[in-house]
């Protein structure tokens, strides 16, 4: 049913439709609405779940892990400082192979304090073993809720899943969303079955320690499972489209890249704006395109190469900076191209930090820069040329 919803509300519907059995979460702006909405659904009976009001984010995820160890489907949500506070448990869920799903409302991290959206929180935690997807809009957010369980719980994957939604511009923006029926959702998403749980007939010891002799094997499996997730994502999207009629394009989305000379690579909601600018420039006869990274882990290395191999130059636009180097997404993209032997001029644009607006003009300027080859390697949007040292 077409409904006018915020990203948070849409996502909450996705969680309801996923028949989540245990929800544990702690409030933080801009995640709060998703938890409030789930609390409402819990109260009105439309969501049959154990709703746990935990006392911290660390406990939110620790509780979800405990519930997952009983074989229950679990959900938590957080943002920014909260995500950082649960960092220990992120490793724990991943290493223990507990397919917890978390919604992270992307938000700037202190200091300076700031509640607005950027992606430094989740991109700073890429190595924690979680699948990381970045949503474009409210519809994709809802759909990712359903798909995340399908993918995370697959026996080939067994890996926790973080759905990232840009704080405010997605979480708090209202738009049209098609909310599927429970019957459709049930057809797509089976209930959770796992062997990675307690068992009263054959008691198990979980989350144990492993010495240097065998430890690497467990880490290797974690890595292998994440790589296997690529195929499972494809399968899940195929079945998703059969049931719901909406198609997704796997680890990344290409928009008018087949003959594009200049391409912006980005992730999250800002891709929507880039699409509009691509259309405009195309109308003016300029061959530009967009690559939207949907999954940063597992990383679409081959797909990136395929999408960029015919381009003359590209820029990575991201709401993140790894201080002393460049944006983390840029590093990942360049590394993928290097692995596949592609070397073309590229530029990194760091924008949207602390919720700074990324405008239509900003995107035009980026295309302009890469076309003329006048961009610097790493450009902070909003910073004037004379503020740089060299």
């Amino acid at each position: 049913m077409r409904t006018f919803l915020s990203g948070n509300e849409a996502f909450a519907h996705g969680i309801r439709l996923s028949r989540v059995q245990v929800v544990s979460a702690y409030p933080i702006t801009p995640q709060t609405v998703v938890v409030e909405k789930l609390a409402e659904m819990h109260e009105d009976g439309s969501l049959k779940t154990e709703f746990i009001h935990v006392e911290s984010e660390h406990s939110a995820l620790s509780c979800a892990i405990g519930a997952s160890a009983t074989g229950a489907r679990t959900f938590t949500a957080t943002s920014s400082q909260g995500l950082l506070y649960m960092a220990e448990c992120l490793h724990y869920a991943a290493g223990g192979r507990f397919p917890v799903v978390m919604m992270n409302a992307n938000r700037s991290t202190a200091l300076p304090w700031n509640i607005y959206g950027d992606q430094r929180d989740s991109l700073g935690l890429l190595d924690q073993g979680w699948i990381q997807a970045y949503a474009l809009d409210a519809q994709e957010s809802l759909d990712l809720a359903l798909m995340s369980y399908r993918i995370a719980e697959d026996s080939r994957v067994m890996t926790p899943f973080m759905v990232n939604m840009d704080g405010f511009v997605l979480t708090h923006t209202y738009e049209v969303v098609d909310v599927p029926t429970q019957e459709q959702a049930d057809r797509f998403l089976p209930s959770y079955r796992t062997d990675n749980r307690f068992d009263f007939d054959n008691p198990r010891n979980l989350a144990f320690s492993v010495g240097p002799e065998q430890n690497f094997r467990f880490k290797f499996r974690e890595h292998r499972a994440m790589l296997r997730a690529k195929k499972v994502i494809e399968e899940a999207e195929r079945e998703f489209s059969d049931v719901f009629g909406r198609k997704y394009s796997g680890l990344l989305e290409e928009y008018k890249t087949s003959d594009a000379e200049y391409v912006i690579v980005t992730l999250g909601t800002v891709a929507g704006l880039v699409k509009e600018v691509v259309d405009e420039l195309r109308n003016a006869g300029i061959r530009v395109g967009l690559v939207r990274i949907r999954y940063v882990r597992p990383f679409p290395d081959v797909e990136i190469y395929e999408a960029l191999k015919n381009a003359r130059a590209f820029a990575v636009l991201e709401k993140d900076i790894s201080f002393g180097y460049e944006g983390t997404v840029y590093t990942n993209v360049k590394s993928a191209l290097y692995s596949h032997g592609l070397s073309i001029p590229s530029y990194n644009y760091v924008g949207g930090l602390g919720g700074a607006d990324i405008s239509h003009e900003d995107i035009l300027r980026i295309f302009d820069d890469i076309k003329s080859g006048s961009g610097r390697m790493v450009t902070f949007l909003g910073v004037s040329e004379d503020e740089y040292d060299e």
Partner: protein
Amino acid sequence: MSDEQKKTLKPSLRQTSPSSPDEIPEATCYEGGFLTTANASWRTVKPVVDNEKCIGCLECYLYCPDGCIFKKQLEKKLKVEIDYDFCKGCGICSKVCRKCAITMEKES
């Protein structure tokens, strides 16, 4: 209660230890009570029970941190026996025995 359920439950020493890649579980989840090494080598002194003195009060059984003292029927009387595979020789049993029926002897 089935026979299986009646059987005493206890971690036990296994003959083989998972080591090859296909024996290693995918996740950190494995059969509980799976023991691959004993603790006997930790011991420098070992408790020896004098069944003449033992009155079967089970204080030693109750206070053993390793749970390696077991109830045993000997000529219809309750006595105890020790699993020397897992006894570390701490000496608590000897200390709590009211009848001084357990002595700590040097390991030979």
